[in-house]
């Protein structure tokens, strides 16, 4: 009979301890786990991306069902242990499940601290600890115009606030101290963080003391000491955690703030161990994942019979997981005697860096806005080696300026010592990652994650791990950093910004000024640059045909056999007998093999020979038809229903609005295709809610939607706002299109752009900021002056690009 190892708790720390144990001594124990939550082990650090909607629960599972089966683990789900009998060596759950143990691990974690103010038991007061909390929060956020108050401006509170804001809630953060995250940040960095979060529409109130949560059954408002009253449908308490010690205390184990353990994680009963947030070691309790994983490793090795591992208190570093906020802190950065500081500020770019030195040693670092050197500074803090006076001058500029290492990130990781910690969460060193890449033949990030755990928890060291892959594998590493293409290290955002900042007005100018690595670019970057230039300099930049994909060069869609398809515009999906007759004649005259209705309410002529294109267009032009741009990264169709003209349910003239939108927007180029629809009532017959931009007419006006997709990726739209008049609907839609044209990356649909910059950012740009919206609209109208020239007419009658359509022909020699 194998000894029985019983584990109370199924969180990240005991999960990691078991992994270590199974690796060092497989089959040593029969393992039984009690889990108070009804689910498998998941990555609690990643609850914030689940809350914000950036990831799903499945993305953050650490151990799926298969893992428990593979290791023959008995997992009691939804079973809260209520009693430990140390005499009989058994544990018993609330529902009466009893298991005996030879060794016991208590991993009960922590409980959120709930401020016992009046009203703290009302429905709608939540903690932020597990998936149940997240699910409840998302439920609240789904109600229209709902608002949340988050009490606590620390790591957890701010992540919760950012997530709820992304879910569309109105969010206020209450923080007792004068600046945010005062335990991890100094006041300057706290100020920058406050400014950034405020600019995202999160209200921050510091020195805010909660007096009462008001409501009868459910939360209605929060009342502060100074009399301020804040409307709230939900209150999230994120002021701190307390180790959960009750069970251990009742069993008579030594407890203080937490369950007291020795350096090998043994409690005062040698057969009982403890690990995780419930533990107290040398007076310290821990809430960050790195030291908890270290405890787990020590415990796992100890259970496997390797006793020479000991847990020791060490420095920790912090990163905030809010998309788009770069923030790093480590060590001790309080001011004090004998301490000196080095500060760097770049107000324009929102960068702040501060290093604290004591007796020539680096003891603390706070970085905001630019955190690439975080790991390097953290290493210096842990090493505690004296900083030479000649190095001090450049220390703040980080690794690239200390010594000869250039700015290249690969060179930067190359310069790190082997024991430099890369992944703080999992305590993985550079040496371990490099040897895993070499020995296991790893080729990508996923391989490194599954083999070493590096970057598998919070993910903020992903860049460093990729640099290590590039450093170890050289050219073999494909890379995952988003760049325009292999011709440059710059990303699309940088390129767009630099085109404007440096007033670059041609493709060669971009390549020269931005240091392109190839002389003439490639098939990936040239179309992108051509688009960025068209969108940035309307009327000035001359379209480069040779940088266009064939469809946009010849204004038709290439088919598998080299023939083309031709789709004339049908404004709002309308047509006439004259147009239909002309189409029928063209089909007969040019022997076009297939005629088909598209999904966008138009007619597609398939199988047109390239040489015939100009003549086909000429006939269509003569009947008043123009290019439908069915081939373009630009406006495609505006799908409509019949609206008030015919439909007994129609609330507005949806067809008319569709035609107006199409007449306004046709010919505009955009980062990717743009499809619109206008539905006359919420029955939504034009399927507006899966379009890039959609309008749903209602009795009182127009609901504007955006960010839908129905291709490889399917997703419904989100609401931009509601407007009352048709003029407003047109202005808002055009302003939205222009914002996308100016900010989107090439080939990025509106939904992807919105995912990247945030749906709320877009709402505040278009719906809330009237001046900004009108400026977007004016810029769109300006740009359209140069865009609305039918490309078919230019080629059919004006001889544009004639060389495209006429091959050079030499007859067979006689």
């Amino acid at each position: 009979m194998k000894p029985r190892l019983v584990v109370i708790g199924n969180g990240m720390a005991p999960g990691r301890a078991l992994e270590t144990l199974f690796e060092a001594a497989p089959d040593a124990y029969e393992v039984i786990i009690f889990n108070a939550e009804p689910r498998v082990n998941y990555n609690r650090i990643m609850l914030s991306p689940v809350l914000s909607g950036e990831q799903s629960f499945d993305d953050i599972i650490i151990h799926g069902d298969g893992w428990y089966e593979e290791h023959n683990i008995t997992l009691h789900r939804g079973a809260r242990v209520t009693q430990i009998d140390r005499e009989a060596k058994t544990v018993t759950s609330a529902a009466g499940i009893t298991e005996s143990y030879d060794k016991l691990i208590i991993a009960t974690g922590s409980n959120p601290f709930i401020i016992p103010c009046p009203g703290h038991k009302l429905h709608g007061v939540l903690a932020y600890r597990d998936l149940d909390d997240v699910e409840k929060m998302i439920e609240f956020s789904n109600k229209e115009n709902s608002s949340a108050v988050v009490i606590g401006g620390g790591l957890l509170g701010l992540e919760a606030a950012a997530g709820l804001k992304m879910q569309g809630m109105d969010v206020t953060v209450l923080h007792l101290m004068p600046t945010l995250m005062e335990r991890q940040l100094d006041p300057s960095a706290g100020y920058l963080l406050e400014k950034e979060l405020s600019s995202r529409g999160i209200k921050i109130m510091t020195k805010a003391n909660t007096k009462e949560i008001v409501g009868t059954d459910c939360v209605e408002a929060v009342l502060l000491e100074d009399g301020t009253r804040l409307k709230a449908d939900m209150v999230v308490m994120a002021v701190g955690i307390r180790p959960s010690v009750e069970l251990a205390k009742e069993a008579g184990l030594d407890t203080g703030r937490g369950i007291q353990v020795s350096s090998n994680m043994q409690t005062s009963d040698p057969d009982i161990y403890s690990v995780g947030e419930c533990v107290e070691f040398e007076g310290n309790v821990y809430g960050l994942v790195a030291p908890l994983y270290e405890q787990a490793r020590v415990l796992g090795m100890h259970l496997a019979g390797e006793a020479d591992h000991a847990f020791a208190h060490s420095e920790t570093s912090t990163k905030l997981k809010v998309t788009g906020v770069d923030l790093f802190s480590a060590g001790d950065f309080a001011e004090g005697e004998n301490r000196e500081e080095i500060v760097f500020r770049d107000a324009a770019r929102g960068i702040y860096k501060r290093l604290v030195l004591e007796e020539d040693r680096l003891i603390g670092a706070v970085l905001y806005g630019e955190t690439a050197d975080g790991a390097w500074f953290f290493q210096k803090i842990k090493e505690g080696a004296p900083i030479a006076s000649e190095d001090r001058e450049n220390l703040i500029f980080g690794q690239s300026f200390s010594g000869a290492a250039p700015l290249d990130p690969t060179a930067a990781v190359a310069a790190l010592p082997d024991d430099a910690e890369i992944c703080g969460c999992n305590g993985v060193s550079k040496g371990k990652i490099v040897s895993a890449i070499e020995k296991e033949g790893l080729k990508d990030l996923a391989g490194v994650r599954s083999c070493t755990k590096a970057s598998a928890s919070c993910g903020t060291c992903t860049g460093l791990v990729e640099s290590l892959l590039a450093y170890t594998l050289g050219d073999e590493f494909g890379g995952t950093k988003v760049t325009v293409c292999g011709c440059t290290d710059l990303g699309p955002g940088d390129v767009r910004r630099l085109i404007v900042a440096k007033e670059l007005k041609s493709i060669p100018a971009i390549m020269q000024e931005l240091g392109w690595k190839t002389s003439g670019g490639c098939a990936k970057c040239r179309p992108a640059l051509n688009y960025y230039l068209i969108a940035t300099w309307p009327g000035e930049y001359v379209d480069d045909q040779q940088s266009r994909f064939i469809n946009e060069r010849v204004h038709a869609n290439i088919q598998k056999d080299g023939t083309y398809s031709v789709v004339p515009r049908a404004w709002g999906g309308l047509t006439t007998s004259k147009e239909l007759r002309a189409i029928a004649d063209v089909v007969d005259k040019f022997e076009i093999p297939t005629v088909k209705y598209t999904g966008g309410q138009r007619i597609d002529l398939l199988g047109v020979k390239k040489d015939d294109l100009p003549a086909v267009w000429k006939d269509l032009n003569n009947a008043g038809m123009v290019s439908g741009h069915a081939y373009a990264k630009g406006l495609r169709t505006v799908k409509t229903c019949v609206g008030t003209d015919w439909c007994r349910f129609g609330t507005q003239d949806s067809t008319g609005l569709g035609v107006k939108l199409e007449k306004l927007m046709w010919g505009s180029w955009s980062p990717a295709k743009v499809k619109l629809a206008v539905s006359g009532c919420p029955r939504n017959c034009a399927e507006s809610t899966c379009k890039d931009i959609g309008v749903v007419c209602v009795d009182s006006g127009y609901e504007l939607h955006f960010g839908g997709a129905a291709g490889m990726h399917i997703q419904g739209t989100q609401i931009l706002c509601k407007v009352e008049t048709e003029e407003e609907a047109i202005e808002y839609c055009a302003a939205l299109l222009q914002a996308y044209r100016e900010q989107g990356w090439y080939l990025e649909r509106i939904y992807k752009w919105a995912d990247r910059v945030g749906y709320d950012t877009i709402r505040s740009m278009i719906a809330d900021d009237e001046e900004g919206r009108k400026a977007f609209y004016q810029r769109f109208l300006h740009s359209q002056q140069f865009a609305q020239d039918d490309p078919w007419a230019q080629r059919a009658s004006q001889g544009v690009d004639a060389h495209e359509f006429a091959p050079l022909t030499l007859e067979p020699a006689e």
Partner: protein
Amino acid sequence: MPHDTAVIDWIDLCAIEDIPLQGSRRAIIRGREIGLFRTMASEVYAIDNACPHKKGPLTEGIVHDCSVTCPLHNWVFDLKSGEATGPDEGRVQTHAVEIRDGRVFIQIEG
């Protein structure tokens, strides 16, 4: 038709300006479809105008450096050798080209 002393005819096809810079031109020579490509450096290359993968018309692709990317499935061919580059394997027939006094002469092989 002008002749050279070579066994195969040199054919005077067009002026160099008839092919757009960093662009291409289809030519049908004695019933055979040839693609002419002019690079940024104004060098001219000729290859058979069909990708070995799915017969994509290479003249419809984007010309970059000394290569062209097929418009159908993005295979990239080196214009000098006719070899597919990157992960794909395949080759298109190349044809000799000479520029004389601004005119493009071509020798059709095989």
